[in-house]
């Protein structure tokens, strides 16, 4: 139970970084931290105490494996997180080139 709560605090820290921080880099870091917390939570859900990784060894009949399904989903979500990060970095570069600052408060040409 304590591990789940610690992961949730990591998730909240990332959320805090996105909401409270004004600098684009800190927002990107917040996004990355949220991705880390969610991937960690997925793998924690699939852990079986005292069992080995889900690779069937060659000639042994060990049957207690960790749950492989969350690992398949986490592989997908890591790659989604990275592609989101790449897109945000590309946007941050273009915004820096146009506005010459990373500060959100100065990037507000859109009104209304």
């Amino acid at each position, binding site marked *: 139970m304590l591990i789940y709560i610690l992961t949730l605090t990591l998730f909240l820290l990332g959320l805090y970084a996105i909401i409270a921080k004004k600098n684009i880099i800190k927002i990107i870091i917040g996004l990355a*931290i949220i991705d880390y917390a969610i991937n960690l939570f997925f793998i924690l859900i699939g852990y079986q105490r005292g069992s080995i990784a889900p690779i069937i060894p060659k000639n042994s009949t060990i049957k207690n494996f960790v749950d492989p399904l969350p690992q*398949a989903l986490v592989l997908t979500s890591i790659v989604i997180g990275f592609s989101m990060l790449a897109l945000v970095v590309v946007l941050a570069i273009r915004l820096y080139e146009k506005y010459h600052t990373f500060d959100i408060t100065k990037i507000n040409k859109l009104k209304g």
Partner: protein
Amino acid sequence: MEIILISLLAFMIIGAIIAIETYDLLSSVISLGAIGFALCIVFLFLGAPDIAIVQLIVEILSLVVLLKLILKREDKDDTVNYNNFSIFSVIFFTGIFITLAYFFLKEIHKFGNIFQTFNKGEIYSYYISNALEKIKAPNIVSAIILDFRGYDTLGEATVIFTAILGGLVLLRKIGRKKDETK
């Protein structure tokens, strides 16, 4: 086992606080890298080797990408303005969410025994027993990714394709053809 995980998690939380609060952007990106590597070690402890490999490599690449963004550009985060209202509200909300979390996290199965869910690990045991007979793939995770749930990975490969295409589209120099008349 739990002690190692909790200590690594504490390390990650401290790293996250450093990454969010420091003025110098370079050190915040470096501490983000440190969190990623600690996460990779946690994956190894939780018995997820190929997730650890992918996480490690993607962590290195995202570090290189972030450093490319920061170097030769602004490196001080001068937007920090601490007023006690924001700090107080943050602590207040985290407090509420954690106490709420304590109640509803009881319903998720205890850490370490996956058979307490509603379907008693029925899908889990099917994957374990049939990965070798039906698909002859000892690595059950690869079997799930590419055969049982291959449709997910098709979407997955498309996500990377879209992100690259989006990056190419956003980084081109002339967006609109400037028509000379208007």
